[in-house]
């Protein structure tokens, strides 16, 4: 019982970071209807920005974290402006292929600037404490708190603000949104800013819990992509749900089956769910054919 509770909490921790990364995937898919494979690398860059500011620049971790989110938001907007907007009228495959190229370019840039070796934040927050049967580190508590806080903030933004409603409107129908007077380019830029900022948060939190590598973006992409498809493409809440399910199930699976299978479990769940619900858990059936 104690083990199961511990695995569940570990799953929540991993799932929270996957969900944060998956949100941006889902929002970009909603707005532009393509899978932005560079999103994991954006998260990686976010992690490295925080690392450079904190470990090399001596800036305290909280401002470094927030500054990394802001700068990564800017990077996301820049990538959209330079790489994706010129392709908006082209077939979606062009954007998708470009996003793979952007991903390689970001990975290679970080590798050239900071080297390929594994880095660590070396935070003085690794002491464990006990809540009931569950052991947690301070970093892990921060991860859970941050992921829930950001998700609640996102829910508030999407539900109650004019920007949030316009993000949902362009995801619903970009042409009709523009006909209504919504500036599509501006809202799409906002989507990339928000998605990239949350990806940076995911990257930093993953980096705090484990370590940093220029190739870590690929693993984030793999998990977040599975979360997004599992939850239903284009549905932000589906992406969050998918992230948590994958986090929890892979922790349970690693313990009860074998740790060797940990990273494959996400895809086993994904395939099983898609057999039953091709559009994902919260997806609309008509979106099932686009992948």
């Amino acid at each position, binding site marked *: 019982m104690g083990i199961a509770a511990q695995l569940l909490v570990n799953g929540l921790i991993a799932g929270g970071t996957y969900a944060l990364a998956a949100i941006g995937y889902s929002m970009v898919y909603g707005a532009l209807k393509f899978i932005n494979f560079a999103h994991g690398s954006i998260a990686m860059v976010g992690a490295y920005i925080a690392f450079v500011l904190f470990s090399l620049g001596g800036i305290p971790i909280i401002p470094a974290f927030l500054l990394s989110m802001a700068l990564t938001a800017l990077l996301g907007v820049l990538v959209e402006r330079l790489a994706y907007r010129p392709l908006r009228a082209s077939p979606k495959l062009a954007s998708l292929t470009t996003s793979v190229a952007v991903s390689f370019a970001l990975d290679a840039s970080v590798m050239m600037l900071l080297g390929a070796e594994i880095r660590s934040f070396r935070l003085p927050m690794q002491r464990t404490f006990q809540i009931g049967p569950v052991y947690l580190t301070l970093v892990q508590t921060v991860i859970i708190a941050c992921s829930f806080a950001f998700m609640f903030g996102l829910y508030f933004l999407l539900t109650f603000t004019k920007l949030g409603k316009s993000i949902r409107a362009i995801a619903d129908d970009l*042409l009709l949104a*523009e006909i*209504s*007077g919504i500036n599509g380019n501006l809202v799409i830029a906002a989507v990339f800013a928000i998605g990239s900022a949350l990806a940076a948060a995911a990257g930093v939190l993953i980096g705090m819990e484990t370590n940093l590598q220029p190739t870590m973006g690929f693993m984030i992409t793999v998990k977040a992509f599975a979360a997004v498809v599992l939850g239903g493409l284009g549905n932000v809440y589906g992406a969050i749900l998918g992230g948590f399910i994958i986090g929890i199930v892979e922790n349970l699976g690693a313990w009860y089956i074998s740790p060797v299978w940990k990273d494959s479990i996400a895809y086993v769940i994904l395939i099983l769910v898609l057999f039953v619900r091709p559009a994902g858990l919260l997806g609309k059936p008509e979106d099932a054919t686009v992948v």
Partner: protein
Amino acid sequence: MSVLQVDNVVSGYGSMEVLHDLSLAVGQGEIVAMLGPNGAGKTTLLRTIFGVVPPWSGTITYKGEDISGVPPERLVRMGLAYIPQEYNIFASLTVQENLEMGAFIRDDDIHPRIEEIFELFPDIAERRKSRAGELSGGMRQMLAIGRALMLNPELLLMDEISTGLAPFLVDAIFERVKELNDQGVTILLVEQNAPKALQTSDRVYIIEGGEKKAEGNPEAIAADEEIARLYLGRS
């Protein structure tokens, strides 16, 4: 003076030319109907006027100002509104959110205007918290019109708003169109329902194959046997 003037417009998609040197005008306070078979280019003309499809050549003027190729966002600020035939509501947003999106460019309090729209269409007022995608066909069209009216447009472009509706709903929708026109809104509409369009409009253009085939007042168009036979599907 015409509110909207379309002069020698050529337009299309990709390399396919749809409109060939088309000209028409809409006067202040008029209801002008465009009739003609499917694929005639009527929808393409509305999309070209509204900056969704750029004109290849020719000019479009609105109240004396050249608006050829001006993006929709700016046209909305100038007092134009457009109701496309399909996909004219945000299905995943609530009824009220749809109306809010119709007034996106306004930064002041839009709730009084939303209430006015609900007074105009009481049916959708009861469903304000429902997702628009759950509405019936008639209510969807009312919501689509409501969204387009949020900014009190001076010129309204409507594309086949009566398609697929039961006859009593068609009558109700056209009554609203008449009322709007009485309040001073100039209207350019595309319609498949020729009798209804002839009954409602002040002037009619017959469009076929991307060209203007005839124009005139509804009585003259209705009385012309050849037009009726060729373009309005009557024998």
